[in-house]
Structures are given as C-alpha cells and as structure tokens.
C-alpha cells in the first residue's frame, strides 16, 4: 500500500468494500502564472473504474493543495473539466482510469491546447465564451431541434425542451490543427454554434458572423473536433452544413432582385 495515498483507508472508513487498486504514476504539467511549465510526478493508488478527475481531485486534497484545475458538475454537463490525458483531449469526469492506462502505468495530464494557461490545468476561456456569445446560441432548445437532424426522433409524443448538446468544453478547439496556428480562427465550437442558431432561426445574421476567412473557411477538414467531442455535437458536420447553407444562400441571392437581396 502506497503510504502517500490514503484512498484505501478512506474507503474503509466510509464502510465500503475495497476494490482492486492499481498503482499508477500521474504526470501533471504544472506552472504558476507566467512561469515556465514543468512536469510533476504523483504516485497514486486508484480504482480503475473511477474517473481521471477523481484522481486529480485526490492529488489536490491529499498531496498538493497548490494544484489548480477546473471542475464543477462531475457528470459532463458543465464542460469545465476538459484536459489532455496522454495527449488526447478528454472530459476527465467521465473518463475512467481503466480506459487510459494500465496497472503500474503512467497517466499524463496537461491543460487544453490553444487556450492561454492561467496556472497548472486552468486555461483562460474568456475569449472562447465571448465568441460563443456573439452567436447568441441558446442553451435550451426544443427536443426535435436539440439533436442532429439525421438522428431519429426521440420515442415520445410529448414535445418539450432540453439543454442542447454543446457544453462549451473546448475539447474541439484544443484538438483542431487550424486553431493551433491561428489566433483569429473562430474554432469549431463557435462555428457549430452558428450552424445550430441558423438552423433554428433561419436568420442570416449569424451567417454574416461566420462567413469569412477566419470563420467557416479556415477549416481544412481534419475532423479531429468531431472525434474528441464528448457530447454528440459533431462540429465538423455542422461546419460543412453551414458552408452548404451559406453557398446556397449566396447563390439564391444572385438570382434575386436588388431590393430583395439578403446579405451575405
């Protein structure tokens, strides 16, 4: 039993049966604000079915209180706990340890890419949210519009509303190679949000926002965003669908009389 990690005794004290524990090494990329980053190692005993966020929380609680990280809901609705785990973007609250390492293995945790790092695993998402707000995306939508159009309708006669799929976690922005080299690119989440707004409202105002070199047309089809999205948004599909809508709209405009034209 690793003497630095009290997980076994805590579970025992709460009257729980002890699961089979794995010994792993957590490699966390750490830095204080405006200081250069460095890697710190933490040895932990973990339940392979618990989530990566639980391990990080335990490092904070029992090993190092200076560790900073973002989290809130612990069940993939808030989008706060996105990080890179072994190089891949994950929502750490729903990523079981079993999925990303093995007994005596290493778990490397780093902050998201393409966001400024405030400290340790905390990134500055203010620019991201400012751009999202420009699209005026509503977090609540009718059931039929909240899903992707090619998904089957939910099996209920009752029409209600629900929180939409996008939890604004930023994993797509972190994985996007275009976002990696351009400070002005809107990023997949914002473009997907614009598509969602357009399909719900049919209002071309949001089209004007994203129909530009730094918007819809900066995407170069890596499809990494849809691969890492934990929440069924499929931003790549939404970007291409918005392109189709934009081109169709522009073509229709060509054949309209001048006083009937609608920008863009």
């Amino acid at each position, binding site marked *: 039993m690793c003497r630095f990690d009290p997980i076994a005794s805590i*579970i025992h004290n*709460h009257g729980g049966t002890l699961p089979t524990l794995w010994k792993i090494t957590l490699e966390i990329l750490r830095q204080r604000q405006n200081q250069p980053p460095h890697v710190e190692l933490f040895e932990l005993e973990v339940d392979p079915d618990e989530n990566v966020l639980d391990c990080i929380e335990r490092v904070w609680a029992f090993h190092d209180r200076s560790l900073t990280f*973002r989290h809130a809901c612990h*069940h993939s609705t808030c989008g706060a706990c996105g990080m890179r785990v072994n190089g891949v973007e994950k929502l750490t609250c729903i990523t079981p340890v079993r999925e990303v390492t093995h007994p005596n293995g290493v778990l490397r945790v780093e902050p998201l890419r393409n966001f400024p790092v405030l400290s340790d695993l905390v990134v500055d998402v203010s620019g991201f949210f400012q751009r999202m707000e420009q699209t005026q995306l509503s977090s609540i939508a009718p059931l039929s519009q909240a899903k992707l159009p090619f998904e089957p309708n939910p099996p209920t006669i009752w029409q209600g509303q*629900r929180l939409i799929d996008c939890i604004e976690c930023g994993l797509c922005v972190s994985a996007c190679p275009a976002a990696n080299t351009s400070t002005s690119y809107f990023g997949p989440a914002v473009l997907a949000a614009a598509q969602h707004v357009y399909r719900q409202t049919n209002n071309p105002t949001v089209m004007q926002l994203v129909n530009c070199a730094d918007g819809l047309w900066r995407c170069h089809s890596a499809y990494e965003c849809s691969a890492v999205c934990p929440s069924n948004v499929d931003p790549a599909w939404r970007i291409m669908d918005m392109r189709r809508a934009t081109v169709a709209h522009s073509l229709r405009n060509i054949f309209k009389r001048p006083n009937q034209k609608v920008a863009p």
Partner: protein
Amino acid sequence: MNSRPSILIIGAGFTGCALAHDLSLRGVNVTVLERGEIASGTSGRTHGLLHSGARYCVTDPEAAIECITESRILSQIAAQCIEYNGGLFVALNDQDLAYSAAFEQGAQATGIPIERLSPQQALQREPNLNPNLLAAYTVPDGTFDPLRLALAFAATARQNGAVFLTHHEVQALHADGQGRITKLTAWNRHTGQQQTFTADLIISATGAWAGQIAAMVGASTVVKPTPGIMVAYNQRLVHHAINRLCPPDDGDILIPQRRMVVIGTTSFEVENPDYIPITAEQTEQMQRAAEALVPAIANTQRRGVYMSARPLIVSGSSGRSLSRTFKCYDHEALDGLPGLITITGGKATTCRIMAEKTADLACQKLGLSAPCRTKDVPLRSYRLYYS
C-alpha cells in the same frame, strides 16, 4: 458611509453568486473570493432538480412553499439554463399509493398545482417508466444546469460591477483594534502569492465549509457536511423529473439532463467535505432505485458517479431528518465578532431567497437602505461572466 460600502463574499457557489448579484443591485461594491472555480464545491455537483416543493408538501410545508415560490421565480429570471418540463410523482406499490391522500392534501395546502394521472396516461408521457406503476401526479418540477445557473448570477453581478476572484483561497481573517473583522488574507493559487483584502463587511457563503471559515476566528457555525451520491446514465430515458411518491427517501429522484438521466441520492455525514470517496455499495443502491423507476436503466451504461456535500444545519438530530432551511449567523450578535456574517444551509432552488435575506441583514448592518430587486430582474447570459 461616504462612498459605496464594500463587502467581501467568501465562496462562489449558488449562495455566493446570488448574493453578489443581489448586493451589486443594491449599490454595494462586491468582491467574491473562491478557492476553486465558480460552483466547484457542492453547487456544481447538485442533482439539478428545480424543486416544485411537492417533495416536501407533507413533511415540511414551509420548505414546500419556499420551493414553489422560488422555482417559479427562477424559471422566469434564469430560463436560459432550465429544462422546465414538469415532473411526475409515481406510486410503484401499495405503500406508495397509501401516501397519495396525504400528498394531495399537502399539495393543496401549499399551493402546488398537481394533477392525478392514470397509469396509462403516465406511460403515454413517459414510455420508459416502470409499467407496473399504480398512479402518478404531475408537478411543476424542472431540471437545471448547475454551473450555468451559478454563472448566470455571477455574470449579472459582474455586469453590475462585482469582482470575482477565482482560485483565491482565504487563509486567515483579521480583526482590527476594536475587534471588528475587516481584513482577510487570501492565497492567489495562480501565482502562489498572498494578498490582503479589506471590506466593511465579510460574508462567508461557503456552505458545507462554513465551519472551517468560522473556526478561523473562533466563531460559532454548526453545519454538518452531509454528502449524497449521484449516478448519471448514458441515455435520456425520461423527459420529466421522476419522483417516487413517498416521504423523502434515498434514491427517490431521477432527472433528465441533456442526453443523460441522473439518479440520486443518499445521505450520510462526514467531517471533511474536501474529498468524499465513492463506494460501490452506494452506487449499487442507486442503481436499484433507478431500475425500480425506469427498468431500462439496467441496460444503460453508467456515464458518471459523483458525491456532493450538502450543508445541513444541525438541529439536534442527524441524517435525513435534518432541517432543510437555511440560516444566517450574525457573528456580532452570536460571538461578539462584528464584521462577519455566515450564510449556510438551504438548497439550490432557494438560493435567491437565501441571498435576499442575507443581503437584507448585511444592508441593515451597514446602514444601507435598499430594497431587494432580484425577483424581477432577469439574469444576463451566463457567458457574460467571461466578458
């Protein structure tokens, strides 16, 4: 007061954020210090049920009336993050059915609109419910996104001048020469540096951690961290909040949220709410409770499991029968420590009224006459917190 009075709030959960919103509307300079992220304590991990109050209409009518009033207000001012689809109370056996008379009486007495449904009607609305259900009632419940609700309050407060400093952990409270608490030292966890803050009044809105803050100056605050477990599943099997028709019990609520359903919860005490491990026993208990309401959960993958530490006010007993109301501790009156107030207890649905009562007390102490306006002011977009 020659200029605007200043207040420091410790804690940016629902209470801290709603309080910052209320006070900034009343013309106070507010600074909020939070050691983690917005709602990274109990508030972020709340089940997410916007209580109609029906759950308490028999056992705790005062709490029920508070809930129906506040849930209606929140559904107006915070519509941006609430799935306001209503809820169902379902009776699965004769014991549940026997509760229905008291339930109907309680709902009428507390002004909560309910409607009885036959099993067929209930199953039409919710095909995945246990087909052996005996009766159901509709109630005006809702589901909300915990972080975005807190952010909506915080965003509006920021737009009105409040300052939020996340990742700032309060380490010590200091009294001046007259024994008045006017200063605190906080650790900026981004930089690793210490900083001092002063204010006319300090309010601890730290929920389950209120005891730890109060202990810094020997003030009295008795709050029992009382966690409970929640389990989230990978499919939206219901569209209404499903409650078991019975007195409040473990695992009697299943809510939908985005593409998930979440079952909760249990109730047990801990000393230190900083880290609460998940035990297999509690997870299995919730699994069984969920399957009783919606059998299809047996074939649904688990998405997440988590614990949240309620701040329950001690009133002599322990466990589930603890009072669900909230309490303002005026430490000047209680402990001879002017300059410090603690607000703790309560639940998410009542965060606005908790803030109102606390702000009333705070303004009274500062000699500020300003009425509460939060009932009527719609909250700004939660994204504006990041502007």
